[in-house]
């Protein structure tokens, strides 16, 4: 009896040892249609991608004449310089910030109505002028940067600004966070602007 018990115990220990070994980390490529993982602590692909898609699609579908004036008479796409994303949400975007920028820029690039100007030219212009992106809302500053860009061989018709904001509602341990991505296009010559936004609500169960 004692012997049998010993064997069972040894087998149990062996099985536990085998079961509780370190597992080698694995990963797999998600197929194009597969759902994104949903971030449990903060926003991730499941939030940013639909926000970008909605906001950009809305903006492209509207294409207000007031913003297009600069290019209208020239029979060419609107040359737009995407200044950047201002994150005013409660969370840091981390490595998503640059990716969201690239997603928006690529969507503009793929639309015949727009012709994006590389961000590197804008960064060089900001270095040269000593201006901040938020100072570009002042018409004189905007024109100054536009002039530098033109000198670089990159004339622009309008500037595009993106802004991420959030609103948080707490109910006990649960939290609802509404993420809003706003895109704002400003005509550098006239100061006319167009604005579109997308909203995504997320419930965190904590």
């Amino acid at each position: 009896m004692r012997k049998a018990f010993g064997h069972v115990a040894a087998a149990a220990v062996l099985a536990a040892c085998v079961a509780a070994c370190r597992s080698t980390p694995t990963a797999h490529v998600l197929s194009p249609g597969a759902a994104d993982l949903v971030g449990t602590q903060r926003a991730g692909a499941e939030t940013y991608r639909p926000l970008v898609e909605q906001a950009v699609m809305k903006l492209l579908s509207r294409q207000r004449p007031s913003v297009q004036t600069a290019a209208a008479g020239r029979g060419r796409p609107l040359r737009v310089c995407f200044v950047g994303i201002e994150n005013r949400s409660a969370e840091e975007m981390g490595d998503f910030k640059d990716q969201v920028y690239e997603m928006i820029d690529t969507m503009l690039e793929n639309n015949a109505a727009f012709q994006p100007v590389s961000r590197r030219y804008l960064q060089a212009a900001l270095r040269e002028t000593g201006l901040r992106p938020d100072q570009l809302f002042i018409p004189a500053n905007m024109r100054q940067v536009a002039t530098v860009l033109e000198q670089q061989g990159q004339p622009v018709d309008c500037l595009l600004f993106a802004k991420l904001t959030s609103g948080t509602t707490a109910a006990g341990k649960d939290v609802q966070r509404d993420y809003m991505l706003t895109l704002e296009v400003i005509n550098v010559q006239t100061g006319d602007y167009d604005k579109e936004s997308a909203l995504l609500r997320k419930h965190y169960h904590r």
Partner: protein
Amino acid sequence: MSTRKLRPVSYASVAGATEVARGTVVRNLARLTVLLLCLGGCATHSQKAASVREAFYAGDTGTARAALAELTSQRSHDRDVLLLDKAVVDLFLGQPRTAQRLLRDVRDRFDYFEQLDLREQILSIVTDDRSVAYPGEDYEKVLIRVMLAFADLVDDGDDVLAYALQAIQKQQELTETPLPGMSENLRKSYKQVAVAAYLYAVLREATYTDYDDAERWYTRVAAWAPQFSRVRLDLERARKGVFARPGNGVVYVFVFADRGPYKVESVEAPTTVSLAIASALITALGDYSVPPTIAPVKVPKVVAPPRRLDRVDVAVPGRATGHCETLTDINRMAVEQFEAIRPWVVARAVARRIVKKAAVVGVKDALGARDPVAQLALDLAGVAWEAAERADTRCWSLLPGRIDATRLELPAGEHPITLQAVGVDGRLGPPIRQSVQVAPGKATFVLGYFPSLRPVGRVLVSEPY
């Protein structure tokens, strides 16, 4: 159906067989005891690392590197932390790429070793914590990524933003995750590593378009490192100013100052006394004696060397002067983190000791060893088994005591820069001169390791970033 014939057995033959079995067990126990004592007698990591530390801090990087090369050529329980030391030596010998490779390998292994392995856990109860693969202390896990960021900055800077972000994310992950087997999160009280956030903020600010990111992270630096007063200027600039005025560039000087934390073996006296009393009580009340707690319970202790360096002054003749301020106090952080998780470390040591005592009593019960001589023999074996335990003193020995930083805005061009250490007693180190290239609107990073008034190895300078 076959039947077995049972032969009558005399009491004398059973008693004789039991005696033989007992003799075999006692002999095997004696062998095991000798083996465990031999294992316990092996040099601990703190003993091995002491010579490396001394050589490195004395500026003898050649000896430190040779010693580390020899130590890391063998498989040992502390190989990973020795590789981390080697990475530091390589970095300040001007080989950031080699340093990065070593750091990346250890970072990945530490991540892997964060998973518990039951075999190792069982072995650690039979022996001690040194038989468990070392996953790194929490501050080391974050600082590996910080060191990777610095090594990459003085190399090509391609991955620096990723490493800085990894350090921030690792820090977040650690403070949100309780230690294995603990419901209470002891890590919540951790002090945050401000240097990773600062580096990230600087890199974002240098883009000229991500001032919001810079502001967010400078705000956190201000909260995590209130002694780093210059961050208020950084914050102000991120809110209203520009990274550098037109035609200017920026030089960031990061100094690894003072000698960093290390672990030594210490005796957990109150626990040892409590266990001794408990052993005596159980012995008095039970059928079998419990091995007395003669061998003290040993646990690691983090030691922070005394502060030798007050600051490092930085000057560009005729242009700018400044001094480095403490951005991250690694010594303090290591001690505080270890104190936070100390109950967990002590609990493991106590659990091990109880299991060992219970095992000895179990053997006595299995053998029916009621006579005093056999009990004494088994108790002695138990005491020897307990005495073979050593504290796990593995740690990254060549970390600096703190990371200090300052910022100078300079006109574009080549500038001579002087770094001079000032001791806590006011003594001055030799001025270290270096040439830096400043590009308009860009950041140049300078990195030096000052364990005392003189730097170790080379002062490293990046290309304008």
